């Protein structure tokens, strides 16, 4: 690995200071489970590595005013086990629980997963389904970016070099919002997704779908929402035929490639089948629960 400088700011203010000072030459470090590998392979060569401090707001994990606040340094392990997340955002807890291994989840953070912007980042489809808001802060300014507007391409985002992701905010949608997540990979753990599918649906008292989210990972240059498919569901009372149609629309939204993890053909087929499976579980089977 190339040589680099290391900074350990104490708090948010110092972090913003360092980020502003180093700009493109600097790179933030959280768990390091992506960054260090990228540096080892020469994909990133920052002159300065700035460690995100283990202080608020980076470590925040709480609910305030119907909003769940998740600090950028909250780990996958915390998301997996936190009673708050398990109860209020089970889809995120499940997705985080399927990242890497126990050791990786002890280090890997939600902020890192988001900023790395891999099409296969497992928490990203879950965050898309949850309408997560990203708080991007730099010296003297703060902006909120909805997660569906954050990703531009593999490893590419709207974040500017001196912007620090401080926290992720997720509105609590209540009990009527049913979610499902499926990570398709060869191994049970410690594997990169061939396809990720996350769905979220609200149904009203009459059983009609009020609103829907369908998000896909590993089948496009970024994690995506299948908006046409979502629209098709809205206002409808779900039936097998409808779900089939929606799953086909989700398939249409994807543009998978063939790589070492799977062919475009397989991914294509899986988007359809898994979307259908998750929607069926959520809307037609009474005991809707996440499963793999």
């Amino acid at each position, binding site marked *: 690995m190339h040589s680099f400088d290391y900074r350990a700011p104490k708090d948010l203010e110092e972090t913003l200071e360092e980020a502003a000072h180093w700009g493109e030459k600097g790179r933030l470090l959280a768990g390091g489970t992506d960054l260090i590998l990228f540096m080892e392979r020469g994909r990133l060569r920052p002159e300065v590595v700035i460690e995100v401090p283990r202080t608020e707001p980076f470590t925040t994990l709480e609910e305030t005013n119907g909003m769940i606040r998740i600090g950028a340094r909250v780990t996958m392990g915390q998301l997996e086990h936190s009673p708050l997340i398990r109860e209020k955002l089970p889809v995120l807890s499940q997705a985080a629980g399927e990242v890497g291994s126990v050791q990786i989840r002890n280090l890997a953070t939600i902020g890192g997963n988001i900023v790395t912007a891999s099409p296969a980042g497992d928490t990203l489809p879950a965050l898309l389904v949850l309408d997560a808001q990203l708080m991007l802060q730099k010296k003297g300014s703060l902006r909120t970016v909805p997660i569906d507007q954050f990703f531009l391409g593999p490893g590419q985002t709207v974040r500017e070099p001196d912007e620090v992701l401080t926290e992720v905010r997720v509105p609590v949608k209540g009990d009527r919002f049913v979610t499902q997540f499926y990570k398709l990979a*060869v191994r049970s753990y410690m*594997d990169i997704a*061939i396809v990720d599918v996350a769905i979220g649906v609200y149904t009203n008292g009459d059983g009609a779908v009020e609103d829907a989210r369908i998000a896909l990972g590993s089948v496009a240059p970024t994690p995506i929402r299948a908006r046409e498919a979502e629209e098709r569901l809205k206002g409808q009372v779900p039936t097998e035929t409808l779900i089939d149609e929606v799953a086909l629309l989700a398939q249409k939204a994807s543009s998978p490639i063939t790589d070492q993890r*799977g*062919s475009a053909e*397989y991914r294509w*087929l899986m988007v359809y*089948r898994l979307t259908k499976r998750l929607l069926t579980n959520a809307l037609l089977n009474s005991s809707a629960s996440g499963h793999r």
Partner: protein
Amino acid sequence: MGSFKVLGSRVPRTDAYDKVTGRALYTADLVLPGMIYGAFVRSPYAHARIKKIDVSEAMKVPGVVTIITQENLSRDYALVIEEEVHAAQQVRGLLAGEKVRYHGEKVALVGAETLEAAKEAAALVKVDYEPLPAVTDPREAVKEGAPLVWDDSQPVTAPDGSLLYNVVAEDHRSEGDVDQGFAESDLVYENEYYVHRVHQTYIEPQAAVAAVDERGRVTVWSSTQGHFVVRSNVARSLGIPLSRIRSIGMTVGGGFGAKFGGVVDLYAVLLALFTKRPAKIVYTREEDLLDARPAPGLYIRIKTGVKKDGTILARSAFALWNVGVGGGALWATGAFTRLYNIPHTKWDAYEIATNTPPMGAYRAPGYPQVLFAGETQLNQIAADLGMDPVELRRKNLKAEPGFFETLEKVVEKVGWFQREKGEWEGWGIALGHWRNASSPAGCIVSLDEDGTAKVYTGLMDLTGTETAVAEIVAETLQIPYEDVTIVRGDTDSAPFSPPSGGSTVTFSVGNAAWRAAQDLRQQMIQLAAGQLNALPDELVVADRKIAVKNDPERSLSFAEIAQTALRSPSGPLIGKGSFGGDPSDTNIFVQAVKVKVDPETGKTRLLRCVQALDVGRVINRTQCEGQAEGGALQSASWALMEEMQYDEQGRMINPNLADYRIPTAFDVPDMETILTEFPSRHGPYGAKGIGEPPITAALAAVASAIGDATGYWALEAPVTPERLALALATRQPVRAR
């Protein structure tokens, strides 16, 4: 044989504490004063002509000491690989010359003060390539017009009259008359199978350190299965007399056949020779996946003729081994006929060169591939005949010691004939086998003044063989296991020992150790007889004592015997044992698995894994079970996920452990293992070699279980979720995408 004091126990391995406390010294742990680090320049192409190599920029990197290319090597520096498991010899250049023939092939070697400098310089070596078309699949390589891997290769004529290209070796065997056998059969089945190349995926990547002293004597430390083989390879490849090389085997983090030398050791020595400084080379995982000694792939067409009652009359095979730029696979082809009474058999096998790394041994070399085809086909035949696969085996299995009994143990444990399965669940059974190698070995056992024993051996312990040897010595001398110390020697200090491979060590070094312990025991009895005024026949050896049979008061402790010897003209007691290699016996391995398939995603989950192994004699129960479980799992993993993938240009696209997958603990069910004991005629206490057999059958058993669950029989391994899902979707047999 009666009952044993030490054999059959679960004593901890000799190296257990060192390993769990992190004290064990691996090659990468070595740091010598003045040591430099080596890094390779590797070919980004699978096949290309090298037009020019320019090292000028690279030499400018601060800290670079030397850059070696084939051009500055004398012609005598050939790479000679001698794998004793295969008895195969190969000669290649140490570094690529006019051409590179696989992705990752070594083109130049940089030595520098730091690893970082070496890597930086390696990246700056400019190599001018003219890319050539490449071929990685043996089915393509044999066709007319395929790129020729070796320029001078000539096509050979196959039995059907067609021409086969890129053939580097062939073998043809037959017994009886298969044509007649097929003619007499009621049904003849012919199927094609394909197994991708897989990597041994040992946890410790290849590593070596070398140093040359003022007098030109070479010392090489390496992660190897056999330091004596490393010594002979270094001698032959670099033209150094054997006596001027000291080869030291460090603690090994697995090898499974890929660590017989030649991958890094020669290069560390080369750097040391060129720079007169100690040199170290440690592979990254990527380098290991690109350029080590992975298993050969196999295309095989098997034809089997049966009577309606399941009696097998004839079997033949046509095999194309994907050996990359190496060789040494042919001999395993006959594995599909060994266990059964088949009047007529025949096989035609070819080694096909492809633009992939040289093949090496991988645990029971070639057997998992061949038996995947052979055993899966038997299960297909059983299904077609409406016969239970176990019945089909019972009908045809040879009545050799342990064969039926070991099969029946699994039948019983599983409750095979009452077996149940839910939706999309399936059962598979397959038989595997191996006959351990039997090799020359020497051993010395001495008695210390406190009555404990020291064992001098040159064995390289990968699987717990040191423990097995210690137990054999303890049993023979009738002392506790804790009273035996193993001294692991190097090629300067130890008696000759075979490399750890082919399940040879417990059998061969075990025999030498048994003989040495017997020799020592005789000397002790002689000495005690004199001291106790008794005849040797009247003495019994037990509990660290030699006593007169009918007068136990008259006795000498081992400590007293050792001390008496020191005061007597005979001097210290030293037993010697040499073993030249007596015939060994085949042991059977029986594998049953249950799987559940998700028909939508194609994911297969192992639900049960039941295996029985005839070990001849249990030396250490935990270790025997460990071998059975580890082998079964490797083989199952081969069936489900392992595959070296190459793109159209022949480049490996998954050279890392995220994409070249092996199972994690979460992918493995509880393993149920049964050990049977049908003693080998010549094994120490009847022990048979047990390292290889456990990997031979699960590949077929898992593939067959998937067939049982889905009705689709895997013709290609691994049966990845993708292959299975697409096969089920298109109602085609499971094949490549």
